[in-house]
């Protein structure tokens, strides 16, 4: 099983433990570009009501599919036009990041908690615990993520809660793999041995000694999984089983515009570009943290 783990986690496994070198991060170009985009999207999502006068769910069926301003028939009233229910597309774009980000962060909290707990346990205790956790991990990796998510959501219904739970319960594998190997590397180091020798409680060792020392790799995995969760929600939305209106995400906007590909491609291009920018920014930040915490592992 070890080789499965090493194969899938190879890019992040090569990390050496250590504290995140903040100063070096701040001098990293990718971090500034990615962080900048991320900040813009976050601020836009939070301050959405100040950025547009339109309500993103207000429909006007008399004004369906108005073209964007660069088209001869467009106007500044709806700079990006309107969608198939006559809703302002710019407003939907600005608000659309909110739920994507919420789903991303919530599922990373769930999957991060599960994966880290299992990973640290496997790495610290080793032996049978390790074997058992590895087995569970293998089962999880064997199940096709998109298909399982689709089956559950189709049969159990797709509320926001179910969606976050399903994605969160599916995406913990990388957390487990990375924390396990990071913990293994630390567990034999002097300060842990010393802590054990002076009789520190196991809980204290796990939370005060090990956890802080694996934050670097954890942040990297969290960034990967954040992007992964947002993409998975978008894929589910694309197949019609994502979030529910009046909530909407960029993935749902693309899904709703699917049939317009030939005649009104901008309806797909606009939310598509936003989604790509968000994922790209998250990846850049993650890569920057990886570069700084483990330069030799950058590849």
């Amino acid at each position, binding site marked *: 099983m070890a080789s499965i783990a090493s194969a899938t986690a190879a890019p992040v496994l090569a990390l050496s433990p250590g504290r995140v070198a903040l100063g070096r991060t701040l001098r990293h170009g990718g971090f500034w570009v990615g962080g900048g985009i991320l900040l813009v999207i976050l601020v836009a999502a939070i301050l959405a009501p100040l950025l547009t006068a339109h309500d993103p769910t*207000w*429909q006007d*069926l008399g004004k*369906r599919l108005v073209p964007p301003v660069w088209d001869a028939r467009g106007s500044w009233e709806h700079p990006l036009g309107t969608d198939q229910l006559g809703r302002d597309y710019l407003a939907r774009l600005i608000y659309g990041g909110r739920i994507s980000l919420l789903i991303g962060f919530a599922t990373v909290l769930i999957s991060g908690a599960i994966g880290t707990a299992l990973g640290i346990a496997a790495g610290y205790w080793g032996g049978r615990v390790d074997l058992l956790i590895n087995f569970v991990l293998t089962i999880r990796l064997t199940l096709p993520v998109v298909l399982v998510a689709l089956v559950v959501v189709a*049969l*159990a219904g797709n509320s926001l809660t179910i969606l976050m739970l399903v994605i969160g319960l599916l995406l913990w594998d990388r957390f487990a793999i990375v924390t396990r190997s990071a913990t293994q590397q630390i567990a034999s180091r002097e300060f842990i041995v010393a802590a054990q020798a002076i009789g520190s409680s196991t809980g204290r060792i796990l939370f005060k000694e090990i956890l802080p020392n694996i934050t670097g790799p954890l942040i990297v995995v969290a960034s990967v999984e954040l992007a992964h969760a947002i993409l998975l929600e978008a894929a589910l939305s694309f197949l019609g089983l994502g979030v*529910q209106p009046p909530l909407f995400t960029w993935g749902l906007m693309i899904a*709703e515009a699917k*049939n317009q*590909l030939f005649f009104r491609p901008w309806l797909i291009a606009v939310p598509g570009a936003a989604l790509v920018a968000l994922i790209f920014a998250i990846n850049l930040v993650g890569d920057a943290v990886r570069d700084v915490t483990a330069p030799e592992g950058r590849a």
Partner: protein
Amino acid sequence: MIGKTIRHLAIGAAALLAGSGAALAGKANDTFVWATGTEIGPPDLYYGNQREVLIISYAQCDSLLHRDPVSNEYKPLLAESWTWTSPTTLELVLRKGVKFHDGREFGAQDVADTLNHVSRPDSGMQIRVIIDWIKNVEVVAPDKVRIHAKAATPAALEFLSGTTPIYPRGHYESAPSVPAPDGKTRRDWGAVKPMCTGPYILKDHKPGQSVTLVKNPSYFAGSPKGKPQIGTIVYRTIKDADTQVAELLTGGVDWIWGVPPENAKQLGAMPNVVVQSAATMRMSFLSLDAAGRTGDTPLKDLRVRRAIFHAIDREAIAKNLVGEGAAVQKSLCVPVQFGCTTDVPDYPYDPAKAKALLKEAGHSNLSIPFYAYRDRPYSEAVLNYLRQAGIKPELKFLQWQALRPLIIEGKTEMAHLTFGSNGILDASASTSYYFRHSVDDYARDPEVRDWLAEADTSTDPEKRKALYAKALKKINEQAYAVPLFIYGRTYAYSKDFDFPLTQDEMAHFYMARWK
């Protein structure tokens, strides 16, 4: 610019399809190809209730009666004449000299075998309402059968036309035995290829891909369905709507339906294509929990229900969103159905009045779950109108299989539902379905129930009409449900093809010809 895109697309598709071995469609080959996105199994209407199977079944098979799709009159098909000898006994004299496609003579035993098989409680037939009224079928003579009904069934003639094809005696005996989850085996009745007497012969069926029908040269003269004209009719499953359009434009396909309204105009501008729209039998409405099945809901208040009525611009949804062929629905039935009246109280779109009514009822800030399962853009449009009137609906959009149990268990306060009455042209299939205290009835009005029960079993047409009208008026007066719109369908087909457009969401290809 958009017209240009379509032309590009058409030329592109032509270039791509060349050499792909697509079956040649069109007048020159006397082969008519139609396509939709549905995958179908063996086209047995009793075990596969897709619209496409209905279309194929009409062409391949005959029922006892035929309902003329234009005049809506019942005409003799496999039965030459029929009489009600008692309120629950229907006697039919059968046509002589009719042969099945395999050459066997058609007779009374075939009718009895087919109907007795499907009306068995464990037959596994999908739309039971069509045959559930039958107690049993008795062979009186080689050309005479007697159908015994469980109760008086004025809609029996409707059930016996079109939707109940007759197969030869012993037809289902060849059904394969397949493993059942209890470790034993069960018979998969639906796996038998239909064998019929109709104007077209089933030549080939590739599950999930295609069905090929060829003209029946010895189809009996005097059939109200007429002599078949087109040589070969091929059904193809093409999942992707854009591919359907591309194939239509390049002549790989002669007929498609369900063209989205926003694309209909562009498609109609193409030289080799005709685009037409027509109404269907599918209605779209809001079911409101007036009876309080879900508990103490604000929807028990008549003012709230009327406010919901006033809040929705049904005209805009039908005209602008659902598009050509669609119409505002006035009452809880489809106007083509017997007994359906549109002369009922109505509540025009008036958001201010809706708000005032809600305020009066003390529910200015009403938050309520809103269940839906089909055509999300339409549900979303309704939802947004409710929001604009100050109601806060929480949309729960589920797959049908997830929503259905909730409806049955009485958990859906407000649900956006659609129903096609199983293609039955009688208000007993729509109004009575929802208001006779069934699991779907969220009004539970005993008065309405009694009127409908009487209407459903009375044999006097005028009396039936009056009773349905009374029920429909009260339903709207009490705003038990909000009828929204009747779906339209847009058909697009080759200009060489003479398509008999009807208002019943059907394609009567056996009546079609080339121009």
